[in-house]
């Protein structure tokens, strides 16, 4: 009887987890990103330039059915329709880009993307989406905080290992730093997937999956 009792408790616990799990997800897309903050001569930030590299599995899915002159190689021109679809679909998700000025979260901070294109690396078989999000009004703040993440975590964003953030023509006093998600599983990812090793996209939902960029201009 105690055995059945234990079994039942375990079972009911599983049911609870099952029900709770229905609302959760794990990522199917991994993005390795490098970010650039664009500055105007007057020292204001005019926009954010994203470069997002998708993992090889998702890249293969994205280019499925696309025609190219040379098999296995795609020009920017050939990828143009896909890039168009990409930025249009991203609008619904607010481009996964969230800005905070002096600690205040900005709503609808960005205009529609400009200068967007897709780049295909035939050797690594990965796609990179480039696009620029202009701020609605150029931003002047002592502290600018930028976050890139998918709140639903279908997409795991992670900074590139080397030079993830660049300030383009920023005043000399400005300094950028990044806060990476704490992810205990990252070394395991490296082991398993060498091709994608340059990514710090976190594998599981750790204590935090924030990818935060801090820019301070005293």
């Amino acid at each position, binding site marked *: 009887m105690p055995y059945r009792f234990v079994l039942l408790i375990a079972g009911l616990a599983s049911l609870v987890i099952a029900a709770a799990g229905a609302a*959760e997800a794990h990522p199917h897309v991994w993005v390795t990103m490098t970010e650039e903050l664009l500055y105007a001569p007057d020292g204001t930030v005019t926009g954010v330039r994203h470069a997002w590299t998708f993992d090889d599995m998702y890249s293969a*899915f994205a280019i499925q059915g696309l025609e190219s002159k040379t098999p296995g190689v795609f020009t920017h021109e050939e990828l143009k329709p896909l890039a168009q679809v990409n930025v249009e679909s991203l609008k619904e998700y607010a481009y996964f880009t969230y800005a905070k000025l002096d600690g205040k979260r900005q709503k609808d901070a960005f205009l529609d993307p400009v200068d967007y294109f897709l780049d295909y690396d035939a050797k690594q078989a990965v796609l990179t989406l480039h696009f620029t999000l202009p701020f609605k009004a150029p931003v002047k703040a002592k502290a600018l905080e930028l976050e890139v993440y998918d709140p639903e975590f279908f997409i795991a964003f992670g900074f590139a290992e080397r030079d993830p953030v660049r300030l383009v023509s920023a005043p000399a006093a400005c300094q950028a730093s990044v806060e990476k998600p704490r992810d205990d599983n990252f070394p395991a990812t490296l082991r398993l997937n060498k091709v994608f090793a340059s990514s710090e996209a976190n594998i599981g939902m750790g204590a935090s999956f924030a990818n935060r960029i801090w820019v301070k201009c005293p």
Partner: protein
Amino acid sequence: MPVTDGVAARWMRRLATVALIAVLVLAASALASAWAQVGPLGGPRPPPADGMVGWLFAQQALFYRSLAGSIRAAKTDGSAYWGLIGISFLYGIFHAAGPGHGKAVISSYLLANEETWRRGIALSFASALLQALTAIVLVAVAALLIGATAKMMGDTVRAIEVASYALIVLLGARLFWVKGRGFLHALHAMRSGSPNAHGDGQAHSYNGHTHDHHHAHEHDEEESALPWGHAHGPQPQELAGPGGWHRGLSAIVAVGLRPCSGAILVLVFALAQGLFWAGVASTLVMGLGTAITVAAIATLAVGAKAAAKRFAATRAGYGSLVLRGLEAVAALMVMALGVLLLTGYLASERLGAF
């Protein structure tokens, strides 16, 4: 009424109480997690998943990521196929334990209905197999035959998704109609007259066959119930006829129709590597893993229901009212899950935002 003296009966009652509490917790947590999803875009970050759930996430994400690696390796190294099969199986097991509405719908369905554990397992395997097959057929037709683009495939999946979620709503609505009426009947029966007499009558009309098993061991009771086409109670019979498969089919299709995004990505990736069959094998094995997890949860749901039923049998009138109420709540949960999925408040999968 059954004689409720002795240690066994006391244990049964305790068990049933635990079952009832847990079912309430289940309902509450399902609602809570659903509400947690409702929020403005870019709003508060979801609470970090630590502990058991976080570990599940990490495991399945790891297995998922290593699928790509093993497919790539299989291109040059034949022995990597075995690794791919093993990883696919583990991914299936963990994937089903994590996201996905399948097990939530199936276990709620089983709580609402009176089913044998065999039927629960059969439902789980059938829906998982159907899910694997839809993914394979979709990619084979779309990518292999007509050279569809990712967007076309994504749109197809979305259409299937809507149909599948609508089916869940219908399934839940029908169940709720039946079980809600059952609850009202029980309520009516209890109000009009002494609970004892009516409780007895209720038990008879509700489920005659339990009486045959009064003195059998509880475990045997579950096993001796006919696995297929077993008619339970008058109401489902009225609506779905005596055929058990008939009834189960709607649940199988509602749950299994929507292909898993992971399977589609694996299949397309395998196709791009010129290893479509490796993708097919991986998808089928993933389905097997998923089926095992869902079947385990389904079995527990059936067990919980059986315990609740035994509890109901120990209390005249009142017990059957609780049981009917429980079924109605479970049916409502199936419907609520469907509505939340359909309206996008609860998203278990999303095939690309790009």
